[in-house]
């Protein structure tokens, strides 16, 4: 079984530029999560999807962050414009139910 795929693995941008991350969850997993993880901290949920529906986006900074999961499979997370404080690892995870989550390798974002 292929794992959660994320791209790119690394991204360096200047502040005020846009950036997008892509996630392909494990086949058959209806639930998809986007997390942000700062160094030395636990993952912080940004948004959770059940199929195409965003069921929890309370922690998503909606002024600059957006996400979509068209067709209930792949998902993209976008930041526009990026700020210095957005530097972090962005993790995507998926699960078949609301139990065990499988994480992708993450995208390490550096905003200069």
């Amino acid at each position, binding site marked *: 079984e292929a794992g959660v795929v994320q791209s790119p693995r690394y991204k360096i941008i200047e502040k005020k530029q846009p950036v997008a991350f892509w996630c392909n969850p494990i086949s058959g997993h209806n639930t998809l999560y986007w997390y942000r993880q700062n160094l*030395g*901290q636990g993952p912080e949920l940004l948004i959770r999807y059940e199929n195409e529906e965003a069921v929890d986006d309370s922690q998503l900074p909606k002024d600059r962050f957006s996400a979509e999961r068209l067709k209930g499979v792949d998902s993209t997370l976008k930041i526009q414009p990026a700020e210095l404080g957005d530097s972090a690892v962005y*993790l995507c995870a998926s699960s078949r139910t*609301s*139990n065990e*989550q499988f*994480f*992708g390798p993450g995208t390490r974002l550096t905003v200069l």
Partner: protein
Amino acid sequence: GQQVMQIPQYQHVQEGEDFTTYCNSSTTLSNIQWYKQRPGGHPVFLIQLVKSGEVKKQKRLTFQFGEAKKNSSLHITATQTTDVGTYFCAAAVDSNYQLIWGAGTKLIIKP
């Protein structure tokens, strides 16, 4: 918002010594999950505890869920270098299955 307190933040041990990390919540939890994140890696699921007072073992790892379902612990017996990493608890507080993550405990093996 709701928080899960995880302690300690770091634990330095000699190889062969034991390691324990604790998670505490002020509210009753629906269930709690434990994950391990190796340096430079991503979190990997270890186990889920659901029942009050539940104890589960995986080789040298022992997981406990408190009777009141407000706290949990992970204990590693006789640590090995392969145990190095950060251990996170992630707690579900209601049927909505939103997970609240602890800050993690970093296990460091002294050379």
